C-alpha cells in the first residue's frame, strides 16, 4: 500500500503560507520585539526590591490573604537572591503578553461557540487537536513565520494555552440555567443585553477558572519555548540541561514554581470571589 503523504501535504501548505505571507509575519515580529523589550525594560527600571514589595502589596490588596502576601514577598526575594531576577521579569512579560493574547482571542471564540451550535461543532475538534498535539510541534512552524526568538515563543504559547479559555468560557455560558435565559427572553432582552447582563456575569467563575488554566499553561510552555530562544527562566533551565548543571536547573525550576503559585492563588481567589 502506498504511504499517504500527510506530513508532506502539511509541510507544503505551511511552506506556501511562509512563502507568501512571511514578509507580513516577519514585519509583525520586528514590531512585537520592540514592544516586548520596551515592556521588559520598563519593568526592569524598578528596583527589584521595590518591585517585590509592590507585588506583595498588590497580592494582599487583591486577596486580603496575609499568608499569600508573605509567601510572595519571600518567594520573590529568593528569586532575586538566586540572581534569576532578570530572567523572571522576562518570563513574566512573556507570559503576560501570551496570556492576554490568548484571552483576547479565546474568550470571544468561547462566547460565539456557546451561542452557536454550528460554530461549536467546528471549534470542538480543533480544540481537541490543539490540546493533544505535543507542544513541541508548534515550535517548528513558528520559526519560519516569526524567526527564532520571543515572538515565535509567544505564538506557540498562545496556541498552546488558548484551549482552556475557549472551552471554559463556552462551558460557563452553556451552564447558565435554561430557565434564567428564558426569563431574560421573556422580559424582552436583546442578544447583547442577555449576554452582558446574564450570561457573562453568571459564567465569570468558570471563565476565571479558564483564565487561570491559560496562565498556568503559558507558564509551563515558556520552558519549552526556550528551545527557540525565548530565554527567561525557561532559558536558564534549558541551559542547565545542556550543561548538566543540576543545581542551577533546580533553582530556575523553583523560581518558575514560585511565580506559578503566586499567579494561581491570586487568580483562583479572583474567580471565586465573584460567586
Amino acid at each position, binding site marked *: 500500500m502506498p504511504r499517504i503523504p500527510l506530513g508532506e501535504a502539511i509541510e507544503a501548505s505551511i511552506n506556501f503560507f511562509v512563502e507568501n505571507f512571511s514578509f507580513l509575519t516577519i514585519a509583525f515580529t520586528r514590531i512585537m520585539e520592540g514592544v516586548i523589550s520596551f515592556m521588559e525594560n520598563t519593568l526592569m527600571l524598578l528596583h527589584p526590591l521595590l518591585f517585590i514589595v509592590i507585588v506583595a502589596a498588590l497580592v494582599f490588596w487583591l486577596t486580603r490573604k496575609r499568608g499569600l502576601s508573605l509567601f510572595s514577598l519571600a518567594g520573590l526575594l529568593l528569586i532575586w537572591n538566586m540572581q534569576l531576577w532578570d530572567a523572571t521579569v522576562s518570563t513574566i512579560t512573556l507570559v503576560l503578553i501570551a496570556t492576554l493574547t490568548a484571552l483576547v482571542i479565546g474568550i470571544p471564540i468561547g462566547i460565539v461557540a456557546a451561542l452557536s451550535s454550528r460554530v461549536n461543532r467546528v471549534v470542538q475538534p480543533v480544540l481537541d487537536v490543539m490540546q493533544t498535539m505535543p507542544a513541541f510541534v508548534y515550535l517548528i512552524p513558528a520559526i519560519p513565520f516569526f524567526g527564532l526568538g520571543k515572538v515565535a515563543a509567544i505564538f506557540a504559547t498562545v496556541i498552546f494555552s488558548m484551549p482552556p479559555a475557549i472551552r471554559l468560557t463556552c462551558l460557563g455560558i452553556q451552564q447558565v440555567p435554561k430557565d434564567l435565559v428564558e426569563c431574560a427572553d421573556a422580559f424582552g432582552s436583546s442578544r447583547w*443585553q442577555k449576554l452582558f447582563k446574564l450570561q457573562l456575569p453568571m459564567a465569570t467563575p468558570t471563565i476565571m477558572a479558564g483564565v487561570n488554566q491559560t496562565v498556568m499553561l503559558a507558564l509551563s510552555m515558556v520552558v519549552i519555548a526556550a528551545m527557540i530562544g525565548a530565554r527567561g527562566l525557561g532559558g536558564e533551565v534549558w541551559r542547565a540541561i545542556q550543561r548538566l548543571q543540576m543545581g542551577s536547573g533546580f533553582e530556575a525550576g523553583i523560581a518558575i514554581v514560585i511565580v506559578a503559585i503566586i499567579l494561581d492563588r491570586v487568580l483562583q481567589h479572583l474567580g471565586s470571589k465573584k460567586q
Partner: protein
Amino acid sequence: MESENKIKIRVENLTKIFGPKSRIPEAQQLLEKGENKENILKKTKCGIGVSNASFTVMEGEIIVIMGLSGSGKSTLVRCLNRLIDPTEGKIFIDDEDITTLSPNELRRVRLTKLGMVFQNFALFPHRTVCQNAEYGLEIQGMAPEERRQKAFTALEQVGLKGWENHYPHNLSGGMQQRVGLARALAMDPDILLMDEAFSALDPLIRSDMQDELIGLQQQLQKTIVFISHDLDEALKLGDRIILMKDGAIVQSGTAEEILTNPATEYVARFVENVDISKVLTAESVMIKPKAMASPEVHGPKSALRFMQKEGFSQIFVHDKKKQVIGLVSADAASEAAQRGEKDLFSIMQKDFIHVTPDTPAADLIPILADIPYPLPVLENGKMKGIIIRGSLLAALSERGRSSDNA
C-alpha cells in the same frame, strides 16, 4: 366584575407539538384523527404540549388555567409570549398576531405588554433583590434612579421592604417568589402571565397575595392569566377558569358553571373536593318570592290573605319604586285586621337584614340561623329573591351531589 368587554388576548386553534421536526406533521395528522397523547408519543416520538386550544381573555379579567401536572398549562402560557413557538394556530394580543412577529417586534411586545412570573422563580442569582426587580425596566432603558424607585415600590407592594440589597439565595422560597412577582409588577405590563406564582407561599401569605392581586387588578385593570394547581385559589381569583387535560381545553367558564355543570367526568373528578358552599352565591340559591305587598294598594287583610295562600308567616313590603321598605308578619297583620286598621305602615317592621346577590352561600347559613324571617336578596334596594333555610340546604345538597355523581 365590570370590564369594557374588549378582547385582550385571543387564542385560536393553538397546537404545540414537541419533538423531532421531521415527525411533527405525522403527529399533527394523528392528533387531528383524534389519536391520544400516549399513542402519538409511541408512534412518532412527539409529545403533545397543547392541542387545538381556543379561548379569549377580556381586558381586566383574571383567567385561571387549571389541570393536572403535564396537562400543558405552562406550555400554553409560554406560547402567549412565544417563549415557545406554537406549531399551529394564532395568538392575538390587542388584535396583533403574535405568531407572525419578527424578533424585534416580539421584543417590543414583551417589553411593553407582557410580564411573566415563573413557576420556578427564575431569579438572577448574581443580582440583588432590587436589581432583580428592576431588570425589566433596565432592559426598557429607564434611567437608574427612576427604575430603582419603581422597583422599591413594587417590592414594597409584595411585602419585601428592607430586603432590597440581599441576594436571592438569602431568601426563603416564598420570598423569592414574591421577588419574581415584583419583577413583573415593576414593569407595569398590561398582561401578567403567572405560572403557579403563589405555589411556594405559605397559606397566610398566599391568601394575602391573592387579595393583593385582586386589588391590583381592580385598581389597574390588568389582564391576568394565572396558572394554578389549587382549585380554591382558582375559585377565589378567577373570573373564569379554563380546565385542561392532555393539552386540550376540556371546559371553560365561571367557577359556578364548572362546578354545577361539569362537562366531563375529568372535570367532575377535578372539582369534587370543593366546598360547594364557598362557590355558590345567594343569587344561585334564592327563590322568587311569590307575593309582595305595597302599602298603596294592600292593607293588613290582603297581606294576610297572601301569606295564608303561600303558607308564609311574613311578607315583604315595597313602595312604588319597588324599593323594599320592610316586612309584615302574619301575626301583626291578623291583629291589625281584627282591630279594623287599614294601614300597613303602622305594623311594618322597618329594619331587617338583607344580602346582595353575590354573597357566598357559606355566609348565608349563620345569618339564616339568626333571623326569624326569610332572608331577602336585594340589588339596589330592589327585591331579587328570598332565601329560606330549606331552599338553601336543598340547593347545596343537590349541587354537591351532581358533582359527586357525574
